[in-house]
């Protein structure tokens, strides 16, 4: 990659166009393995490289990127992007190297493991899933991926960061069928780790869990329809909290007044039992990093404490606008995108109620043991999330499994309603999409109870009402 002096020269050219200029250089080595129908169908290696230059002038952002990493082509790009932001007097740029305060240690680097070793992990997950029930399991898809991303970030404010990020992921999708009924089960593990991840999250265990879920759903009834109490188990993951308040606390949406949480700093926005934290420093988690994509160190930010809104998640632009400090949440998918405020690892902090007690105290409702994907409209606060594994609760007991339901609610209303918070905590990983950019995140919550959510199930007959 380029030297520090090269970067200073490029930034000086870009700076002519604005108040702030930044360059983000990236090189990425990618391995992907796909297995389906008992075959290793895809073994893919990729090399990606590129640089993005950002020039800010007032509220205006100009962004350009290229695959070519020569100094000449970057000077050309700097000139182009700078021009898009207009002319400015020049001052010299001095870069100062920044050391990470967070340490993320990788045990077994993906580039030190032969492809055969990775294929073996994929095969183990595939076989374990099929062995759960050779007759009913109709299809197993396993996908493995690892990424080694080298970044260099430099700006006219003197930021100069070099970093290496390593991420691994393995996902299993199982299709089970019996008669006319087809159901699926999904499990995934991922982290900012190398292959040591699979010592904690054994691929065969992921395969087995996915297959068991698919089989369980074969015998599940369609979920009921209408309003009811919902208990989200700690092991269910944190999709609900990610959608119900995470996105709405991203400062860009707040400042544009596109969030129901805009202008509510210091106000009680949730039940006193609710404390929400975004923490990019958690070792090994899928949403962790040493530096964000603007070169600011990752940090732990309390977003909501005992129901009171304390902070939003900021990148550089939004922090400046609010007179706040960046919270290390400026992230981007790749050099092709400008950074925007994003979540890292977001969780609802545990309380002190034993999880069993929460179920026992619920007369009737739905228990969610695994959540799937979700979505939110931050402007009105409505959100949805998918139930991948659910059960009815009858008289404080978990009874029959139910399938195929999405739950919906309104973020601020639901946060105020939460009336029981367990002492457990379970994480799940995901790729979060915003403005066309996908970034790796994780989210978590303890077992909690929401007295009333809408369950999107099925009524059998026309005109039926609840």
């Amino acid at each position, binding site marked *: 990659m380029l030297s520090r002096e090269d970067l200073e020269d490029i930034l000086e050219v870009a700076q002519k166009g604005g108040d702030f200029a930044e360059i983000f250089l990236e090189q990425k080595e990618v391995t992907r393995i796909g297995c389906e129908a008992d075959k290793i169908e895809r073994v893919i*290696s990729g*090399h990606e490289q590129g640089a993005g230059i950002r020039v800010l002038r007032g509220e205006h952002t100009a962004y350009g990127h290229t695959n070519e990493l020569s100094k000449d082509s970057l000077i050309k790009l700097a000139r182009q992007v700078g021009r898009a932001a207009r002319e400015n007097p020049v001052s010299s740029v001095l870069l100062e190297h920044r050391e990470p305060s967070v340490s993320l240690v990788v045990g077994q680097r993906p580039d030190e493991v032969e492809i055969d070793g990775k294929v073996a992990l994929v095969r183990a997950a595939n076989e374990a899933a099929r062995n759960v029930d050779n007759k009913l399991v109709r299809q197993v898809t396993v996908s493995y991926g690892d990424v080694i991303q080298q970044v260099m970030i430099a700006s006219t404010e003197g930021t100069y960061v070099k970093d290496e990020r390593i991420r691994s992921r393995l996902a299993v999708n199982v299709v089970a069928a019996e008669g006319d009924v087809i159901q699926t089960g999904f499990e995934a593990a991922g982290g900012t780790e190398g292959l040591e991840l699979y010592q904690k999250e054994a691929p065969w265990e992921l395969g087995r869990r996915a297959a068991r879920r698919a089989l369980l759903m074969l015998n599940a009834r369609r979920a009921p329809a*209408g309003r009811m109490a919902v208990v989200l188990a700690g092991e269910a993951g944190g999709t609900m909290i990610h959608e119900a308040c995470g996105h709405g606390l991203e400062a860009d949406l707040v400042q544009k007044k596109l969030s129901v949480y805009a202008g509510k700093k210091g106000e009680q926005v949730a039940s006193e039992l609710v404390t929400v934290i975004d923490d990019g420093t958690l070792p090994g988690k899928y949403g962790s990093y040493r530096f964000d994509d603007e070169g600011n160190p990752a940090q732990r930010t309390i977003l909501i404490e005992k129901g009171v809104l304390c902070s939003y998640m900021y990148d550089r632009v939004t922090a400046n606008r609010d007179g706040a400090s960046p919270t290390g949440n400026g992230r981007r998918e790749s050099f092709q995108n400008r950074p925007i405020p994003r979540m890292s690892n977001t969780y609802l902090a545990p309380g002190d109620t034993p999880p069993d007690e929460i179920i026992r105290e619920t007369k009737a409702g739905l228990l969610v043991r695994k959540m799937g994907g979700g979505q939110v409209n931050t*402007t009105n606060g409505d959100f949805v999330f998918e139930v991948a594994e659910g059960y009815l609760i009858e008289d404080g007991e978990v009874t029959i499994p139910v399938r195929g339901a999405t739950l919906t609610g309104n973020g601020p209303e639901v946060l105020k309603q939460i009336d029981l918070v367990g002492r457990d905590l379970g994480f799940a990983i995901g790729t979060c999409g915003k403005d066309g950019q996908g970034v790796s995140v994780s989210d978590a919550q303890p077992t909690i109870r929401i007295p009333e959510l809408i369950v999107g199930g099925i009524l059998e007959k026309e005109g*039926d009402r609840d």
Partner: protein
Amino acid sequence: MNNKARLDERELVTVAVAEAKQGGAEMAEAFFACSEELVVEVRNGEVETLKMAREEGIGIRVIRRGCLGFAYTSNLNWAVVKKTIEAALANVRTATKDPYNTLPEAPIRYPEPDLEDPALKEISLEEKIEKAREIERAGRAYDPRVQLTERASYEDSHYLVTIANSRGVLASYRGSFCGGYAVLVAGAGGEQQTGFGLQFTRKFAELNPVAIGREAAFKAVRMLGARRLETRRVPVVFDPYVITSFLGIIASALTAEAVQKGRSLFAGKAGKMVAAQGVTIVDDATLAGGLLSAPFDGEGVPCQRTVLIDRGRLQGFLYNTYTAAKDGVASTGNAARDSFKSPPELGCTNFYLVPGEASRDEIIKETERGLYLTEVMGMHTANPISGDFSVGAAGIWIERGELTKPVRGMVIAGNIMELLELIDAVGSDLRFFIGKGAPTVRVASLTLSG
């Protein structure tokens, strides 16, 4: 050969294929793609973000002893491309042997669709920025309650695709498109609702910024005051955008890959009725003006029009070269490839529900009570394998054939096969949203939870 660090793309793919053959590949393919993109976002009349982007790269696919290997790079320096070819050959080693792995032969000829607007490159940046401003102005002027811009943007893209394989394929094409997108926020009494409008077209002259802005504004304003209704089972009239999102689930189930791998809802149903009489679904890569039209697919097979469901009856499936070899049929030219970073997958092109006779207003008028569904949330959670869906729903309540009050915060649920069978009206207002399109349709009965 190696004295030149950088080759032109036709040379590059040709040389890459030769190199892979020399390295031991029985068959080899090189796929080059390059794109240039411009995105302008404005807010309150000012340019907020201006993005200019250029991306290129090459993907190498090799077959050796029946096994497949793939590697890609965005660094086109010949030394790096050579390493990428070596990586593809090395990846073959751990892949599973499959007798149907093969590449297509060169065809006699390719169709020559009109994909490029030569005017687009001549138009100044300022004129393009003005399009984005017009979108915002038209939306904000529509109604005083439209108070915020979430997004008002203009974008365009130019691309070049070049492919070569060891069986004689060597072809390329250029294309371009442009579009506008608006998300506007209407507010009243402390409540805020959003609406969106969009248009993508091959021709700059066809872009209508005023219509985009007004559509977003109209949709935002009509949702003000939306409430939740009680749970019930009712007829649902789907707006074209919403039914188009459901087509995405159907598309994957209509691929031969899903059938061969035992994960298609349509497996074993060829020749049978799978939908209501009014339902005809077509995939057409030759469609004039279609955003996904092309002369050839992701592996160099000529593109075509394929009728998948004809008046409710399942006609067949979409094929690429691999799945066609396995079933002993011809490829339908549906090897989809949206980047050089992946080997071709099976996918649809311009995929749409063929329009019927009735106008949207006639369909609503014939609906005694029901929901006019205009927005869904969490569509990606619908399960294309089981066909089960349960998604957030918002729209307008229909009472005695009239649109009455807005509704939101509800969930609509069912199964996609049931939905296809229950379609009892198909509108004449076909509209495309990039690669997929549909007219207004009515489904006789679905569960609405609230």
